[in-house]
């Protein structure tokens, strides 16, 4: 049922002029299908993906993984390359961790507060200090420092790697053309897909976590560095060239300073993605806050999960605000700025020493507030009273159950019942209608790849969750977005909420949904909806608000009602933004649906978790590859026509 709505919805959303090419494309596709489908059906008549077309990779993958495990301590590649890398990472993280511990809670809090004060002002400094103290109060000081130590190393590495790649891509067209599709594609992959390859090479542990984080967090830095260097005001660069600068002078005195905004935005995004990944990487041995959440979720201990989740949230908000403020602020100050930094550093050292002398290096146990117990009691109460049997509205577990029975199950059953070729056909049709034949081809190949990998059924299971979550997200998101675009007051109310929600790592969304809905596929879908909603709302609102005011004014002057304005002017003109919202929604939903494997979401996400937990890397790697394919397919299907290609030209 939902598949039918999914296929027709984008088509009706197309405005009139686009209908003709659309019909042409569909006809052509129908002809191709009419020739190919009977042939395929005759050869591989099967509802599910035909067995003859799968390639069993688990045996070779298992062999490869065994080989790596056997040779990790003896093969030169590991001894002299990966070994060094991994040792270096361990040493770095350890060193940062020891420095943080040596500075003590007082020193670290003072340093963070003063850093925030220098870059973002007094209010954020107070907020930062409060956030760090809260981490201590919750009894999470040591895990917070573990996460922070990992973050510091991973962010530094990501920034260096990203900036270098970005510099290369910003200065050389050829590198840019080569790098850009890679970076674009990496951005649509769910975080989970990065875990297994690094585990294969480095084994479970801190190095794997750091490398997964770096690989995940470096692309935004690279993208934005390249973008900043390329989008610099052409006339300024020409003026600078006209004064006889050398290429080096141009880079240092003009291009990099001009790209300052993008560089700092890249830093901000890299830090946020690194935090998100550092938390998820607890699955592969990163200690710290993520690990506490992971362990707590595994035993459905919502109170403990919340105690570790709150510091993650606080850390995310503080990091985002401070780095964001640094990007928006004025340029680097003169000598006064340096003096301020010197004072800040001095004050930090003083506070750290004072705490040391006072013997208050470690956070005192007596100062912690144990929230796990009360929270768990509250959750128990909720379980008893809200889970089910609430008169008229039903309980949360009832909703989850009904959602599973009435929506998730039929969609999954429908998808798995569909002949495999018709799934490919629908993918091709959708991708071609919205995008170009290239995106359609990529989408079909990616979808077929999941079949070839032998995980057709779990992929469709994941897909069904994604479709259901995306449908709900879009309905809620478009409605909220339209409301926010029409009412300034509503938008003002909504903005801080969106700001906070958009900065949170994917992982923490699992905590409240487990509290509310227990475990299963419905909570995974709910987490995905909550995670993707802010982005969809924001893009929709911005798209609607950026509609040419002159067009809107002329519609109003012709006496259009506000509904007519919305339907005939705003929505059609905001179509690119709406398509982008769909695209983003799909990508974000997929990321969390996969992580939902940790809370009983099943399907591909579970395969990855299972593979990691059982040391069965082959299963995990196949699932990871399928996740990548699914991500690629979903992104290409919803990728608006040539938009990315044009931006690059």
């Amino acid at each position: 049922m939902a598949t039918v709505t999914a296929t027709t919805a984008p088509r009706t959303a197309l405005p009139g002029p686009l209908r003709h090419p659309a019909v042409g494309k569909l006809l052509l596709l129908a002809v191709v299908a009419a020739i190919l489908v009977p042939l395929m059906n005759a050869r591989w008549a099967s509802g599910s993906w035909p067995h003859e077309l799968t390639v069993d990779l688990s045996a070779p993958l298992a062999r490869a993984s065994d080989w790596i495990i056997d040779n990790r301590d003896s093969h030169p590649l590991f001894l002299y390359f990966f070994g060094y890398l991994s040792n270096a990472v361990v040493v770095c993280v350890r060193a940062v961790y020891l420095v943080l511990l040596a500075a003590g809670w007082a020193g670290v809090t003072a340093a963070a507060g003063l850093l925030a004060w220098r870059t973002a002002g007094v209010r954020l400094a107070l907020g930062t200090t409060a956030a760090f103290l809260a981490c201590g109060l919750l009894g999470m000081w040591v895990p917070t420092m573990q996460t922070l130590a990992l973050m510091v190393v991973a962010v530094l590495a990501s920034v260096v790697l990203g900036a270098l790649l970005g510099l290369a891509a910003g200065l050389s067209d050829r590198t840019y053309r080569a790098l850009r599709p890679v970076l674009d594609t990496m951005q649509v992959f769910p975080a989970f897909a990065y875990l297994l390859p690094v585990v294969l090479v480095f084994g479970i542990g801190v190095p794997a976590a750091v490398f997964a984080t770096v690989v995940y967090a470096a692309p935004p830095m690279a993208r934005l560095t390249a973008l900043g260097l390329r989008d610099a005001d052409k006339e300024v660069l020409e003026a600078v060239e006209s004064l006889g600068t050398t290429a080096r002078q141009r880079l240092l005195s003009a291009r990099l300073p001009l790209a300052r905004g993008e560089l700092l935005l890249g830093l901000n995004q890299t830090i946020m993605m690194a935090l998100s990944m550092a938390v998820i990487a607890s699955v592969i041995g990163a200690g710290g806050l993520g690990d506490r959440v992971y362990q707590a979720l595994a035993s459905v201990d919502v109170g403990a999960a919340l105690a570790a989740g709150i510091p993650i949230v606080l850390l995310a908000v503080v990091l985002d605000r401070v780095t964001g403020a640094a990007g928006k602020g004025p340029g680097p100050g003169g000598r006064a700025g340096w003096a301020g930094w010197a004072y800040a550093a001095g004050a930090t050292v003083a506070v750290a020493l004072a705490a040391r002398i006072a013997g208050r290096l470690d956070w005192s146990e007596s100062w912690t507030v144990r929230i796990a117990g009360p929270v768990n009691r509250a959750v128990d109460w909720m379980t008893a009273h809200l889970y089910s049997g609430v008169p008229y509205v039903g309980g949360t577990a009832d909703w989850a159950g009904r959602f599973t029975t009435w929506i998730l199950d039929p969609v999954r059953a429908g998808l798995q019942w569909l002949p495999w070729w018709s799934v490919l056909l629908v993918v091709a049709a959708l991708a071609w209608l919205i995008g170009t034949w290239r995106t359609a081809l990529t989408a079909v190949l990616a979808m077929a790849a999941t079949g070839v990998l032998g995980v057709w059924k779990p992929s469709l299971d994941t897909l069904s969750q994604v479709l259901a979550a995306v449908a709900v997200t879009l309905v809620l998101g478009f409605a909220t977005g339209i409301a926010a675009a029409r009412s300034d007051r509503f938008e003002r109310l909504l903005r801080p909420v969106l700001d906070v929600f958009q900065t949170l790592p994917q992982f923490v969304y699992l905590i409240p949904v487990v509290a509310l809905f227990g475990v299963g596929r419905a909570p995974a879908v709910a987490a995905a909806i909550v995670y993707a909603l802010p982005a969809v709302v924001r893009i929709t609102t911005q798209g609607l608000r950026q509609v040419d005011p002159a067009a809107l004014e002329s519609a109003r002057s012709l006496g259009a009602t506000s509904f007519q304005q919305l339907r005939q002017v705003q929505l059609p003109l905001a179509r690119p933004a709406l398509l982008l919202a769909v695209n983003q929604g799909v990508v974000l939903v997929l990321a969390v649906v996969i992580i939902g494997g940790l809370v009983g979401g099943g399907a591909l996400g579970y395969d990855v978790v299972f593979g990691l937990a059982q040391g069965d890397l082959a299963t995990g790697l196949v699932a990871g590859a399928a996740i990548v394919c699914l991500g690629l397919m979903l992104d290409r299907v919803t990728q608006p026509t040539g938009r990315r290609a044009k931006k690059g030209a």
Partner: protein
Amino acid sequence: MSKDTRTPADAPVFSVEGLWKVFGPKAERVPTDPEFASLSPAELRERTGCTAAVRDVGFDVRKGEVFVVMGLSGSGKSTLVRCLTRLIEPTAGTIAIDGEDVRAMDKARLRELRRHRAAMVFQHFGLLPHRTVLDNVAYGLEIQGVGRAERRERAAAFVAKVGLEGMEQRRPAQLSGGQRQRVGLARALAVDPEVLLFDEPFSALDPLIRRDMQEEVVRLHREEGRTMVFVTHDLSEALKLGDRIALMRDGRVVQLGTPEGIVGSPADDYVREFVRDVPREQVMTVRTAMRAATAEEAADGPALPPDATVSEAIEAVARTGSPARVMDGGRCLGVVDHDRLLRVVAGTGHRPEPGEKAA
């Protein structure tokens, strides 16, 4: 100055010959092939996929003059001025500065040219937003490796010269458009270039500010006598500033001459249409409007220098009621009377000989 010893005073600063700039695939075949070279822009694009922005242009810029390149948007004038210092690499032709071949320069020599001999002022200013006014003006000197104290001192003098005292520590974003262009002008002047290149410097400004800035340029030129190449799409600006004007259309120079030559004797219908609304009496001089004087006229009547404008003559003739004499030294060259002056205003007056227009 040392430049003067290098070249004779009347030698051209810039000498351009057969210059082509073609954008597009295999651009270099267009200038050399007479078949392509004669095509219209639309045909050329259709046949080769190339766009010829500058087509076979040649001119000399003399020392100390204001040479205006004038044309509508897309006529190739901005490309042309960028070719002079190879900000855009020309496709064919020769460019010489003080007799030295610009196209043959290596990178270091070209940087030298840009650093010391030709500085440019841009339409959208091209200021560095992260630097103060003073540091923007000092930027050219910084590039040359001038020490911090010295370059700031020299820059401060130029900031004052363009009338921005007290604003040294502001950022470009805190300035108005006119003030920003003054910074751009000061930056170009600060490196003491032999030639100043202007690329539509005032088109982004309000009309009143634009007039101020034009007067500023006139003043600077009067004070320093620096050679200027000035690109504009504004005819009145061209007429006001230019000693000579090259009028461009579709990449070609359709007419090159004094403002009077262009207004008084347009080379073709395009130029005629272009200058139709120009108040001729303010551009034409009595030298072109006069006729031979009779003996009695040569003896009496108000006297005017030969380069007085017709509107000045009208004023004199209206005041005295008699024809005005055009006097060069003590010699009477001719007279202008009501009839002659009215013909100029009506646009039916005599046209100078073709030979005169290249003057």
